[in-house]
């Protein structure tokens, strides 16, 4: 029977236990393709820009779903949908930064299918790369975006190394701001790394946006109580409010006492191949009031060191203005 669907012929595994999924991922290696909500996957497959022999569909593994309280915060199964995260009472009460970010992903239908694990593990959106061109990220030896004629309005200001693509995830900056950690399983056991180390730039690994290695599965995200009930600010700037990826996003967690910002985490999305922590801003606002006097001083720190391409200079003042808003809005 010939398929007239645009999906390429592939095998499908539907494990119902984590152990089986991990064993499959180990056995298939790079011939296997982990499938969560699939909202990044099907584009690659239908466009024939990437493929694999088999999909490992993780959706049947019930233990990877759901949100639970732990001794120190909460644990979110990697297969929990973005809609569940955006509407979960516990997350809304304590970590509304994450629910705000999850609620701004793509469209309602994509949030209904898309998972947290998939959102943080998705590939970059550089259209040259997604078109299947043989750029650095695809194993080739040139970049089509960072050229005088290249369409690089959405590309990186920081951390470029041959590749200038940015991490498109909306939840990633929020998780870095909340000091989340990522639980990763493989046949070799479990390892836990911080969200900050989970996302990697092209200088470290040009073919992957995360530290996830072949054969490994992200099984859960843990959020410590460190920033529970803090003062949060999330804003995503995109061309359209639905579907589009962030041009720049800003996820901020602050501990404010009276008028004074005591501690903060400023994390910016859409400007680097990993969520960018604005350490200079964090240092500068410590002990200062959250008003215009502070923003005059610190806003320009946000984009310090930016190396704009031909068409993305606008992102630098956008970063500064989002920092300004974050400080003055709280």
């Amino acid at each position, binding site marked *: 029977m010939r398929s007239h669907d645009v*999906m390429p012929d592939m095998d499908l595994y539907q494990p119902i236990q984590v152990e089986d999924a991990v064993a499959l991922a180990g056995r298939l290696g790079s011939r296997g393709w982990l499938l969560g909500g699939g909202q990044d996957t*099907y584009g690659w497959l239908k466009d024939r820009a990437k493929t694999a022999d088999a*999909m490992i569909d993780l959706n049947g593994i019930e233990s990877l779903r759901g949100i639970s309280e732990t001794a120190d915060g909460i644990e979110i199964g990697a297969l929990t949908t973005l809609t569940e995260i955006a509407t979960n009472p516990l997350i809304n009460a304590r970590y509304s930064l994450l629910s705000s970010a999850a609620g701004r992903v793509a469209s309602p239908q994509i949030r209904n299918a898309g998972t947290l694990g998939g959102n943080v593990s998705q590939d970059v959106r550089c259209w040259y790369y997604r078109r299947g061109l043989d750029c650095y990220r695809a194993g080739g030896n040139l970049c089509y975006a960072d050229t005088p004629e290249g369409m690089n309005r959405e590309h990186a200001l920081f951390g470029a190394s041959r590749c200038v693509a940015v991490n498109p995830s909306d939840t990633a900056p929020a998780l870095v701001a909340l000091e989340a950690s990522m639980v990763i399983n493989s046949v070799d056991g479990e390892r836990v790394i911080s969200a900050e180390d989970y996302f990697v730039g092209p200088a470290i690994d040009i073919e992957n946006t995360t530290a996830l290695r072949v054969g490994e599965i992200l099984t859960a995200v843990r959020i410590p109580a460190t920033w529970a009930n803090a003062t949060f600010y999330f804003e995503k700037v995109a061309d359209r409010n639905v*579907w589009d990826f962030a041009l720049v996003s800003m996820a901020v967690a602050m501990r404010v006492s009276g008028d004074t910002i005591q501690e903060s985490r400023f994390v910016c999305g859409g400007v680097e191949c990993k969520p960018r922590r604005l350490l200079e801003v964090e240092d500068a606002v410590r002990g200062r009031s959250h008003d215009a006097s502070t923003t005059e001083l610190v806003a320009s720190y946000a984009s310090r060191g930016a190396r704009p391409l031909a068409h993305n200079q606008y992102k630098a003042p956008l970063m500064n203005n989002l920092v300004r808003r974050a400080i003055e809005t709280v």
Partner: protein
Amino acid sequence: MNPKITRRRFIKGVIYSASAAASGAGVYVATAASNRSNGAVERLISINVNGRTRRVDVLPQETLAHTLRYRLNLTGTKLACNRGECGACTVMIDNVANYSCSLLTHQVKGREVTTVEGLRAADGTLHPVQQAFIEELSPQCGFCTPGQVVSAAALLIANPNPTREEARQGLSGNLCRCGAYDHYLNGVMRAAELIA
């Protein structure tokens, strides 16, 4: 050849007898080509569509939109972008709106699929959303309408009395190239009144 034994039925029969022998493993594997060996999920599966159990022969990589349109002949579900960027293929899975172009049919085993064909009552009475869309002249060219209807129906299940802004958000995953958005919103608000 006996006209009642079509090629499709004959092949289905062969596959059914083979898969019955292969089932029972803890890990299900669907196999695209018959010569791939490493264990196999049944390709002939049952899915629940519009309240009926349908036996259907589904390739491992097949999307639900494809199964609905080309195997079950439920062509009310439209395929437009086929990339999760337009909403024309929206169906409900367990009363939640999903893009059927971006979902594998094998993932809806054991779940309830509702397409635009399944919304009206058994006696033919239109769903309140359908009735309201007619009364408000919501569709223009009509191609995105099935997706809009299903999204609106799913919204009203989750939130029977939405504000206009909530309705806007609820239907924001459905493009209308005619730009009839306000008319659809009028329809959703009227449907909410009909349900109340």
